[in-house]
């Protein structure tokens, strides 16, 4: 050990270890062996167990149980049993428990921090100052939502039993992000921590027992991917919440397709870190430290791609290299280190391989002169320059302390490069020019945008991804949506069900087999043409050729096939184009070209929609007779009238679905802005051909999305008439595109299209499942009805917030201020 006179000369840092005696004592007290926490009791595992290791030493900390499918089932049953009482306990009762959990976390904060750092390898500074305080904050914040649920979440009820699977990078924090909102909203949970880092979840289970949380409300099952799979496929689980890799997220999306399970996924990222030349470069350097050398870079939203304006690049690189020299890597329990250990050898090898690949592809590597500890699994902070956007290291999530640096020339090029990724989790923007910052932030495809800061989190701010970084938000009011569903929704009955309602409610005749007209091609071929009802005189009718409506133009279907359309009496009344893959491709391209719609003001969008209603009203009579012909309804006035009213609803909503400013505990403004999802495929419901089309297309359009709509199969001519109304109403070209044809087939094509950002499907159960499954390709947002129809004439069911929520994704923009 160095003497005081020596240190007086060198002024080196010495060891500053945080003690772990109390944690070790606890582990010893458990016999360094853990079971499962099911139904409020500890259950010894019936199957295998495995070691959980300290990444800083490679030595075992304890043995943890590999939960079997049978044990998962037991946990799910415990959660199911506990759920009704937990919900009926009421918001205030749940608030008391959540508050108690927050207090318990605070009371044991250092214990939890030390345990976390031992098991995960993250620096004690981070577990102590960031992870654990945020854990407590999440329970406090959501205690508040439990208290307020009855007033603030009117019409919504718990989803039920939630299966939650969390990663190893922020073990306890991810647990809090999952459990706190679920419990607040009256759900019960079965949570599986990552197999590398089970210990804080197990200690948390003890805390649940200590505060007297009712048995079964929280169940903790440990194990690897096999346990996770048992959760994902369990039929009694109502929702899966997962944080982890995009690869596993895709498997979950596919495995749950058509099951009716709600799914929220928080996946990988390759987040851009955009530096303009007018930024405070010294602060930028510290930003990079927080972005990529936080938690050893094992952060899903790590700013791993530095994009710097060319003029500032050399200075920034020099400053970064100098800063990297002063970073300290070492024992995670040392209070004066910046980076701890990599979670496991498998992760270390992955990082090493990717870095090697980067060098092989021509990147220039820079690492500080000091060396990492020999024991345990460490990797030094690494900067890669001379990287092109095409390089592997610029594309792939490394999940380690490795940052790549590229340059750009202009703000638009910065946006282009920033968005040149499949992911969309987070971004940060550094500039002292507020005009520039607020111009760029909305253009970035990311769920969180940090202005002049990075990797700041709070329970009041929603966190989650765009694109292949997943969907759903955690935190804020927007995060609650994942853990509630709308009450009183008609959930029984397959598609025929709604008609019974119509008959009962209106005394109208039951709809005819016209709904299946398109499918009955053999019959169609033998029926005579044109309905007498539409024939104006004794002269032969002028042939009408309904086409597809793409990019504001009426176009012939690519394939050159048409389908006959029959009326209520089975008479052939016209033909529609049979849209195919290429028509969808063209429509999607047209919809992308219309992206300016999202940037038009909400007021301008509202005006267009009102004008649409106005123009439909002038043609009310025509649509009535068209509907009459199709549906055999004696008085289709109601559908047209409801349609006009519905257009009004969304014209009204267009400039009223506001964002919020979250109260995050920093000197900043956190803007939660609902943004359009982008290009959406909408497969319209078969019932109410006109009202259904408008009820599904317009919420999307009102929020700024552009749409490829596939109209009702039963009455597609209503839609092709409708595009004339669109044409006369100043709806910009490409905002609404209509492709007629076989809805199921077109739904599959849209779901499998990787440049479609979201898809709504209203139809049957089988196609719903297919849409969800095929959407896993680019993790597009999906909303399907699983064949459970709704009454589109009922404003309670068919209009409003539920639709707007589905038509938007929330972006949180953090804007610190202060000169």
């Amino acid at each position, binding site marked *: 050990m160095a003497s005081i006179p020596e*240190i007086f000369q060198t002024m080196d*840092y010495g060891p500053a270890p945080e003690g772990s005696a109390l944690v070790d004592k606890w582990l010893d007290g458990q016999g360094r062996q853990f079971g499962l926490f099911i139904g409020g009791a500890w259950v010894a595992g019936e199957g295998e167990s495995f070691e959980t290791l300290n990444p800083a030493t490679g030595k075992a900390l304890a043995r943890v149980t590999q939960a079997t499918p049978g044990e998962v089932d037991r946990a799910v049953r415990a959660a199911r049993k506990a759920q009704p009482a937990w919900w009926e306990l009421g918001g205030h009762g749940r608030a008391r428990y959540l508050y108690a959990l927050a207090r318990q976390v605070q009371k044991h904060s250092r214990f939890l921090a030390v345990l976390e750092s031992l098991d995960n390898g993250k620096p004690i500074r981070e577990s102590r100052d960031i992870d654990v305080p945020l854990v407590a904050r999440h329970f406090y914040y959501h205690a508040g939502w439990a208290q307020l649920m009855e007033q603030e979440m009117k019409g919504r009820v718990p989803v039920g039993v939630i299966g939650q699977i969390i990663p190893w990078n922020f073990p306890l924090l991810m647990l809090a992000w999952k459990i706190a909102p679920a419990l607040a909203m009256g759900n019960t949970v079965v949570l599986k921590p990552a197999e590398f880092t089970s210990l804080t979840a197990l200690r948390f289970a003890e805390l649940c027992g200590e505060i007297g949380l009712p048995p079964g409300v929280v169940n903790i099952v440990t194990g690897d991917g096999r346990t996770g799979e048992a959760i994902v496929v369990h039929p009694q689980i109502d929702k899966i919440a997962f944080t982890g890799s995009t690869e596993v997220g895709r498997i979950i999306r596919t495995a749950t397709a058509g099951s009716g399970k709600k799914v929220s996924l928080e996946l990988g990222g390759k987040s851009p870190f955009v530096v303009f030349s007018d930024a405070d470069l010294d602060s930028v350097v510290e930003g990079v430290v927080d972005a990529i050398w936080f938690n050893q870079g094992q952060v899903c939203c790590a700013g791993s791609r530095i994009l710097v304006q060319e003029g500032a690049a050399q200075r920034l690189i020099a400053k970064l290299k100098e800063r990297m020299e002063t970073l300290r890597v070492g024992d995670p329990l040392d209070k004066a280190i910046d980076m701890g250990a990599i979670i496991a050898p498998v992760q270390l090898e992955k990082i090493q391989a990717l870095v090697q690949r980067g060098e092989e592809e021509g990147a220039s590597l820079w690492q500080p002169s000091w060396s990492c500890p020999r024991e345990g699994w460490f990797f030094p902070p690494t900067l890669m320059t001379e990287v092109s956007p095409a390089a592997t290291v610029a594309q792939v999530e490394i999940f380690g302390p490795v940052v790549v640096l590229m340059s750009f020339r202009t703000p638009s090029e910065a946006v282009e490069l920033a968005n040149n990724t499949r992911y969309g989790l987070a971004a940060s923007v550094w500039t002292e020019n507020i005009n520039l910052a607020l111009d760029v932030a909305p253009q970035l495809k990311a769920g969180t945008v940090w202005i002049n800061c990075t990797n700041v989190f709070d329970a009041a701010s929603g966190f989650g991804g765009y694109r292949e970084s997943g969907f759903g938000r955690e935190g804020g009011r927007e995060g609650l949506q994942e853990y509630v569903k709308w009450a009183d929704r008609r959930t029984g009955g397959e598609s025929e069900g709604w008609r019974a309602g119509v008959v009962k409610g209106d005394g109208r005749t039951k709809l005819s087999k016209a709904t299946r007209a398109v499918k009955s091609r053999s019959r169609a071929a033998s029926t005579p043409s044109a309905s007498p009802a539409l024939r104006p005189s004794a002269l032969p009718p002028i042939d009408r050729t309904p086409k597809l409506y793409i990019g504001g133009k009426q176009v012939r279907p690519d394939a050159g096939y048409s389908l006959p359309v029959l009326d209520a009496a089975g008479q052939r009344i016209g033909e529609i184009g049979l849209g195919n893959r290429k028509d969808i491709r063209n429509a999607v391209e047209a919809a992308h070209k219309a992206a300016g719609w999202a940037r038009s003001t909400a007021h301008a969008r509202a005006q267009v929609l009102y004008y649409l209603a106005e123009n439909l009203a002038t043609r009310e009579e025509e649509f009535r007779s068209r509907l009459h012909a199709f549906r055999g309804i004696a008085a289709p006035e109601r559908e047209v009238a409801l349609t006009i009213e519905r257009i009004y609803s969304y014209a009204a909503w267009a400039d009223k679905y506001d964002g919020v400013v979250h109260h995050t505990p920093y000197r900043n403004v956190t803007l939660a802005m609902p943004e359009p999802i982008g290009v959406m495929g909408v497969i319209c419901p078969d019932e109410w051909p006109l009202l259904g089309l408008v009820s599904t297309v317009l919420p999307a359009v009102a929020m700024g999305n552009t749409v490829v709509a596939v109209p009702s199969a039963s009455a597609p001519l209503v839609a092709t008439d409708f595009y004339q109304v669109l044409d006369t109403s100043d709806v910009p070209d490409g905002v609404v595109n209509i492709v007629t044809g076989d809805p199921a087939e077109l739904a599959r094509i849209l779901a499998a299209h990787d440049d479609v950002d979201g898809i709504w499907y209203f139809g049957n159960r089988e196609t719903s499942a297919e849409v969800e499954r095929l959407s896993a390709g680019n993790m597009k947002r999906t909303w399907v009805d699983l064949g459970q129809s709704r009454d589109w004439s009922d404003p309670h069911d068919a209009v409003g917030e539920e639709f707007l929520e589905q038509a938007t994704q929330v972006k949180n923009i953090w804007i610190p201020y202060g000169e």
Partner: protein
Amino acid sequence: MPEAPKQRIVSPSSTAPLDLPVAPRNPGKPLDLSWIEEVRVNRSAVERRAATLRTRRTVKKEWQAAWLLRAITLLDLTTLSGDDTPGRVRRLCAKARRPVRLDLLEAMGAAQLPIHAAAICVYHIFVKVALEALEGSGIPVAAVSTGFPAGLSPFEQRLGEIRASVAEGAEEIDVVITRAHVLTENWPALYDEVRQMREACGDAHIKTILAAGELGTLRNVARASLVCMMAGADFIKTSTGKESVNATLPIGLVMARAIRDYRERTGHLVGLKAAGGIRTAREGLDWLALTKEELGDRWLRPDLFRLGASSLLADIERQLEHYVTGRYSATHRHPAT
């Protein structure tokens, strides 16, 4: 494990060497207004760095003791009160010579180390008293000057004050700048003012006090720092100790970065003095860590870093005794100033 470094940063060839025992003086440079205009300081980011720096670095046990001894050698032991007397100044000087009880130094194996304050800082009128009291110690006397603390007396008079203190034997002059020049962004006026003050100092080192707490913004602190360095300041100093906001870590961070920036571009070394409000050993250590992190180890020497304080030493002594004995100490167990 990955291999060691692939390349190192190459410093500009004109950069002053860091291995000289005493840093060469900063000759200054012509006022560069475009540089001043470029300066950007993001307050929130600076505050975040300052706040986390305290939580990222700490020293314990031997390291803490050694760092505290180092802090003492960086101390401008200061008395700047209206009720100062020759007797009070003599006591302070005695403390500057022997700041730590010998038994404590011996217990730490540090009895051979040159542990004494870096300087004594007083008003002009006490320069002579201090010089006499410090004779033979090698400890310089610093005089606050130029209408300290407001700096608003007639300019010639302020220059006269400097000359008088230098003539009296002060080796360091702590001058205050005209805050109005900063607040009106009149950089040429600030530059000329400091330039002339530096000339008046002759061989005495000049520390320019920014009174950062009165400059309104951190960006102003950065710009004033650069102008003072261009005008030839040997040290830039945070505060007089009389402002309502004195030496805060964000202010120190901005000034340290300005010093680093100045060195990167000119090669010249400038010192940092934190003064005002630093009272606890922990705060002193925070300043050392900030300086080490942002400027490097070379700055942890009295020619490039000072802590201006009057009550800090008492807390350091108590912490040192705690290190030696393991028992919490009391102020009255250490010689008073």
